[in-house]
C-alpha cells in the first residue's frame, strides 16, 4: 500500500501511508485509538475507498471497491466483533456463501469434510457439528479464521484478535498464526498490547495521527521504544502504584457470604466474603467467567444477591434499586460497554448525563436543563479526552476506545464516588488512554475511595492494585498484598490450585 490518504469529515484518517509487507510475514500494526490502523485495514479489505494512493497485491496494482473484491484477491479479515450466525454449526458458518452443492442442494457432508480437512491442515481444532453459540470465544475466532482460509485467503487481517481472549487462548492463537505464516500466509495484526506484539510479530509498524511513524524489526526493539513511538513522547510515565504511601482506612465495602446466580440460574458467586478499604485498590484476578461479572452486578444492584450481606459504608445495600446504590456513592464501569455501558444509538450527551440527569440542576420537575447538561458534557469530554466531532452525534460513531473513555468519564467524572467497581476498565484502549484511566483509579483511591478492580489482564492487576484476590469457580482466594511473588501465586490460584 503506497501513499494511502483517506479524508473523513473533519479528520485525516490516513495521510500518505506506505505499508509494505512481505509474503509469510507477521506484521503488527500498533498505534493509539484513532491513529488510523483500522481505517488502513478497512481500505485494504475494500470496506473504504482511499482518496489517494495505490494498492499492489502480489505485484499487481489493484483497486479494491468491495470486500468481495478483497476476498477474490486472497485478502481475508477477522473482525474484532465476530460475524458468525450463532444458530448455525461451525461447518455451516465456514462455508456460508460458498456452500458446496450437489445439484441445487447444500451438500452437508462435503461441507463438513472440507472444514475438517482445512482445520487439520492448519491445525485449527474445531468441531464442525456444534452450533457456534455453544462454543468458546477462542473457538469462534478459529471459525472466523477458517472462514477466511476457506475463501483461499493468503493475506489475513486480524483486528485486535486478543481483546476477547483469555491468556491460554491467546497462546493458542499465536501458535496458529505462526503455523499459518510458516505455510506462507501473510498476517497483519492490529493490537494495543505491546507484550503480545513483541511475542508474535516479525516486524512492527507504528502509526500516529494517520501517519506511519516507523517500522521496526520486532526482535530489535523494546516495549519502551515502541510506546515512545506510539505516544510520540520521550518518556512515558507508566502508571505504577506507589504502595509505600498507602494507608488503608475504614472498610468502604464489605461482602459477607454473598451468593449470586448467573443468567442460567446457576450459582456463579458462592459465599464470597471480602472487604475493600478506603484508599485501597483491590484487584480481582481470574479467568473471565468465574463469577466476576455476577459479583460486580450484585454489588451494583443489577443482579439479585440471594444470600449474604453487602455493606457500603456501614449500610446494607444488597438488593436495593440501582439508583439508590449509585446515590450511596457507587460508580460502575461495566465490562461490556456496548451492551451495558451505553446506548450506542443515543447521542453523546445523552450517554454522558444518564446517571445524573435527574439531579437538581440538571433538570427541573419535567424539563431537562439543556444548557447545564451540555456544558457539563463538554467539560467531561474535555477532561477525559473523549474524541467526538460533536456532543450531538450518536455514540455509535465513536471508536471503541473513545466509547470506553465516555463510559469512564460518566462514571468517574463527577468525582463523588466512594466505591468504584471497575470491570475490565481499559480493555481495547490505547496506551495513553489506559494510563489515564489507571491514574484516575489510583487518584480515586488516594482521595479515600475504595476501588474494586476486576480484570482478566494480569499486568493491569499487578500494576495498580494493592491487594489481590483471585476468583475461581465462584469463590475467592486471598492472595494478599502485592509483592514480587504475587504473579506466581495468582497464576496458581487461577487454575484452582491451593495458593
Amino acid at each position: 500500500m503506497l501513499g494511502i490518504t483517506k479524508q473523513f469529515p473533519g479528520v485525516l484518517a490516513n495521510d500518505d501511508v506506505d505499508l509494505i509487507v512481505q509474503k509469510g510475514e507477521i506484521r503488527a500494526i500498533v498505534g493509539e485509538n484513532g491513529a488510523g490502523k483500522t481505517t488502513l485495514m478497512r481500505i485494504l479489505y475494500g470496506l473504504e475507498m482511499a482518496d489517494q494512493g495505490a494498492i499492489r497485491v502480489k505485484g499487481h496494482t489493484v483497486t479494491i471497491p468491495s470486500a468481495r473484491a478483497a476476498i477474490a484477491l486472497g485478502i481475508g479479515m477477522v473482525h474484532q466483533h465476530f460475524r458468525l450466525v450463532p444458530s448455525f454449526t461451525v461447518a455451516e458458518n465456514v462455508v456460508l456463501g460458498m456452500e458446496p452443492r450437489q445439484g441445487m442442494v447444500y451438500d452437508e457432508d462435503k461441507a463438513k469434510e472440507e472444514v475438517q480437512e482445512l482445520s487439520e491442515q492448519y491445525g485449527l481444532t474445531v468441531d464442525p457439528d456444534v452450533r457456534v453459540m455453544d462454543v468458546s470465544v477462542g473457538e469462534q475466532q478459529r471459525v472466523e479464521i477458517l472462514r477466511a482460509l476457506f475463501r483461499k485467503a493468503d493475506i489475513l487481517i486480524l483486528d485486535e484478535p486478543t481483546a476477547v481472549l483469555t491468556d491460554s487462548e491467546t497462546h493458542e492463537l499465536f501458535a496458529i498464526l505462526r503455523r499459518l505464516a510458516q505455510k506462507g500466509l501473510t498476517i497483519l495484526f492490529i493490537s494495543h498490547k505491546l507484550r503480545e506484539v513483541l511475542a508474535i510479530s516479525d516486524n512492527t509498524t507504528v502509526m500516529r495521527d494517520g501517519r506511519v511513524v516507523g517500522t521496526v524489526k520486532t526482535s530489535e526493539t523494546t516495549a519502551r521504544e515502541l510506546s515512545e513511538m506510539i505516544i510520540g513522547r520521550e518518556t512515558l510515565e507508566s502508571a505504577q502504584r506507589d504502595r509505600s504511601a498507602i494507608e488503608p482506612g475504614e472498610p468502604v465495602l464489605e461482602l459477607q457470604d454473598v451468593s449470586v446466580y448467573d443468567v442460567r440460574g446457576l450459582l456463579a458467586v458462592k459465599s464470597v466474603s471480602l472487604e475493600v478499604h478506603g484508599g485501597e485498590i483491590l484487584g480481582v484476578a481470574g479467568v473471565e467467567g468465574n463469577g466476576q461479572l455476577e459479583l460486580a452486578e450484585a454489588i451494583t444492584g443489577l443482579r439479585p444477591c440471594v444470600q449474604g450481606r453487602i455493606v457500603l459504608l456501614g449500610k446494607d445495600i444488597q438488593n436495593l434499586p440501582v439508583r439508590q446504590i449509585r446515590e450511596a456513592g457507587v460508580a460502575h464501569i461495566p465490562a461490556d460497554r456496548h451492551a451495558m455501558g451505553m446506548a450506542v444509538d443515543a447521542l453523546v450527551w445523552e450517554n454522558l448525563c444518564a446517571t445524573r440527569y435527574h439531579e437538581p440542576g440538571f433538570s427541573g420537575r419535567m424539563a431537562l436543563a439543556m444548557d447545564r447538561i451540555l456544558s457539563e458534557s463538554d467539560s467531561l469530554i474535555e477532561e477525559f479526552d473523549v474524541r467526538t466531532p460533536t456532543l450531538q452525534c450518536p455514540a455509535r460513531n465513536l471508536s471503541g476506545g473513545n466509547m470506553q473513555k465516555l463510559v469512564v468519564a460518566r462514571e468517574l467524572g463527577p468525582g463523588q464516588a466512594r466505591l468504584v467497581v471497575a470491570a475490565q476498565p481499559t480493555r481495547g484502549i490505547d496506551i495513553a488512554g489506559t494510563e489515564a484511566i489507571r491514574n484516575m483509579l489510583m487518584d480515586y483511591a488516594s482521595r479515600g475511595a475504595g476501588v474494586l478492580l476486576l480484570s482478566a489482564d494480569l499486568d493491569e492487576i499487578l500494576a495498580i492494585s494493592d491487594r489481590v484476590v483471585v476468583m475461581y469457580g465462584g469463590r475467592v482466594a486471598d492472595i494478599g498484598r502485592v509483592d514480587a511473588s504475587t504473579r506466581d501465586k495468582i497464576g496458581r490460584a487461577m487454575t484452582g490450585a491451593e495458593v
Partner: protein
Amino acid sequence: MNRHTDTEVGTETTQVQRMLPAIVLQLMNYVLILLLALAIGALIIASSGKDPLTAYAALFHGAFGSRMAVANTLDRSTVMILAGLAAVFAFSTSVRNLGIEGQLYAGAFVAAWVGFGIQALPAPLHIALAFVLSAVAGAAWSLVPILLRTRWGVDEIVPSLMFNYIAIHFTAYLVAFPFKSDTTILPGTDPINATAKLPRLMRGSPLNVGFALALVLVFVVYWFLFRTKQGYELRMVGMNPRFAAYAGLPVKRSALMGMLLSGAMAGIGGASLILGFFGRFITQFSQGYGWDGIVISLLAKNNPIAVIPAALFYAGLANGSLEMQSATQVPITLVSTIKGVIMFLVTAQFFLRYLSKRYPQWA
C-alpha cells in the same frame, strides 16, 4: 482522530449546518423510494391497459389539486397524525403496541358517549372533557397488555393485538344493543350535542380544529420526548434497556408510561374522528387508521415532527385514490400496492445505503 475545533456547544448554527446534509440525504432517499414505487405502480396500471399518467394526475388532483382537496387531505391526516404519534410513543420506548386500532375505538366510543350524554356544558369545556376522557379510555385499553409484560414478562405483541378485536366487537355490541340509537339505521350511538362538535375551519370541508390540535400535539410530544426527564427515560429504555437499568433509570415504569401515553394518543385520535367528522360513534368507523399510524411512525423514523409529512402523504394517497378510481377506473387497491412497495423499500433502507456510500461526507 482529531477533534473538531468548532465543537463548542451553544453554536446552534454549526449544529444545524451539520445536521442539514443528513436531512438532505434522508429526503433524497425518500424521493427515490417514492419515484421507484410510482414507477412500479405505473407498470401495473399500464399492464391493465390504462394510462398511468392520467391515473397519477387524477391521484394528485384528488389529493392536493384544489383548495378543497387540500383541506380534505388535511382533515384526513388528522387522525393519521395522532395514530402516528401513538406509534412513536410506543416504539421509542420499544413497547410493541399493536393495539392502536383498538385504543382508537375505545377513545372514539367514550368521546361519543361524553358528546351525547352530557348536556348544557359550554362548548370548549365539553370538547376538552371529551378529549380528556377519550385519552383516558385509550390508555385504559392499553393497560392490560402492558401490565402483563411488566408484571409477568408476557410479550405485549399478541395481547395488544387481541385487544383490538375485543374493542371493535365490544363497541359493535354496545351500539347494537345498550346504546342503540333510533336516529340512524346504521348501528351507531345518538348524535353528539352541538357543544361537543369541533368547529370547522373551512366552509364545505370537514377540516376542523382537530387538525390544529394534532399539530400542537406533535410539538408537545417532540418536546416531551427530547427535552424532558421522563421523555429521556423513555427513549433510553427504548434504545438499550440494559443500559437504562445499569444507569438506574426506571425501566418498568418507563415501559408502562410509554404504552399508556401511546394509548392516550390513540384515544384522542379516535375522538378527533367522532367529534370532528362523524358526529356519532358508528361501527367500523376507522379504516385501519391504527395500522396506518404504525407505518407512519416507521416512515417518520420515530421522529414526531416527521410524522406530519408522513401522515400528509398517506392522507393524500387515500384521498387521491378515490378520485383516481372514479376518474380513470384504476382501483383504490393500486395505492395499497404502492404503499407496500414503499414500506418494503423503507425497511430495507434500499437507497440510503447507496446514497451514504456515494456521498460519505453527508452521512
